[in-house]
């Protein structure tokens, strides 16, 4: 079981969250329509998710029940599943409890209109019933790899912003006098001051609270 990405330097900041939930077949297309609408407004919808600042990737897939037989070339008995499945996969930073609490406290009923069709879904409010539902259905990842495990969502944003500023700065200041360069450098620092916090992995011995990991 390996929900938290890592490398030889330490624990990474990317944590896996995998939640398959059954959906009645008649509701599958409703879920799909709801998600398509969300996807169309992806850039603005993501603004709320962006405010949460700890979700790096999110996949919401629908697995039709016949997909469980898509590799069956007739040689085996088919799986007779009664439901289609929502497959919600996300990658986030930090312990799980506050991640789930954020869904309750920030996204609230907004996500219920898509998740609401899942069998047994209790609603995202109140939090304890929602947390219990997730715990019953959640699956742990067997392998979770990140190409930049020591960088959280915020770290990536900061580093990219800094890189962009540095490149522009280097291109425009090479010919400045030393004094003018110093003044320009101070103006650069004012623009990137909150990009300078240390980036690195977490110590191995910090078994982060409520990570479902060993």
């Amino acid at each position, binding site marked *: 079981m390996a929900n938290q990405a890592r490398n030889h330097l330490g624990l990474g900041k990317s944590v896996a969250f995998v939640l398959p939930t059954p959906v009645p077949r008649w509701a599958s297309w409703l879920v799909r329509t709801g998600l398509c609408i*969300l*996807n169309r407004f992806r850039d603005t919808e993501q603004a709320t998710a962006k405010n949460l600042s700890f979700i790096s990737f999110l996949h919401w897939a629908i697995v039709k029940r016949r997909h*469980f037989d898509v590799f069956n070339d007739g040689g085996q008995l088919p799986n007779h599943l009664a439901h289609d499945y929502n497959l919600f*996969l996300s990658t986030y930073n930090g312990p799980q409890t506050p991640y789930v609490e954020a869904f309750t406290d920030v996204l609230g009923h907004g996500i219920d209109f898509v998740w609401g069709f899942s069998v*047994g879904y209790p609603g995202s409010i109140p939090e304890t019933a929602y947390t219990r539902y997730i715990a019953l*259905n959640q699956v742990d990842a067997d392998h979770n*790899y990140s190409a930049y495990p020591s960088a959280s969502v915020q770290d990536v944003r900061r580093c990219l912003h800094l890189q962009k500023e540095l490149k522009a700065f280097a291109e425009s200041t090479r010919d400045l006098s030393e004094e003018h360069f110093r003044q320009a450098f101070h103006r650069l620092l004012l623009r990137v001051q909150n990009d300078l916090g240390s980036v690195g992995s977490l110590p191995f011995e910090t078994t982060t609270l409520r990570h479902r990991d060993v």
Partner: protein
Amino acid sequence: MSKKSKPLPNRYGKKYGYTALFPIRDAANGVALRQHLGGLSEDRNGSPFSSATLIHLLRFVIIDRLPFEGYPAKQESSRQPHLVVMCDFDGAEVADLAAALARQVPKAVCGVWRHCAAFPFAAPDELAHAGAADRLAQYLRRGQVETILYLSDRPEATVTEILRSIQAQHAFAAFVESHQAAPPDQLKKGFFRLWDSLVQKPDPHPGSL
């Protein structure tokens, strides 16, 4: 459902969000695969798949039990365990992922997918043959499920850009620390020495930072 070319939802900026479900051959293969996957993070860079340089994130999840269903509780089950694959990579289509996997990490690919039904390769060196990347792409598309919503925080940033920016951040922050009291001449000289060396540094290996 047509598996030829996925609709736009899978793509966001420069990234592609791939989600797939593959049947594992049988329960014994499920056990073996779980054990195999558990050992992958011992790799120095967090995964042997790290050498497939277009991958931002890769996740394998074995599902051998379908979720609890409401009241009265019913357990639904499939005849074999399944492997869920989630991958976020720089590319426009599944073929880009397949090409990178075949070329850069054939051993890692076989190590995982040989446990899955209908995997068309018996050994890693077969992935070097002509047409192998296409056959792998076809297989990956067959297992692909429909991703309706795909979000990514920085959709335009590639793996290389992110890694280089982290490398630059480490170096620049240290530079600022050590040059706070520097006279103007040292500041300018020092900055360009740093910048020029950063530009020439090779791309950090994915997973190493």
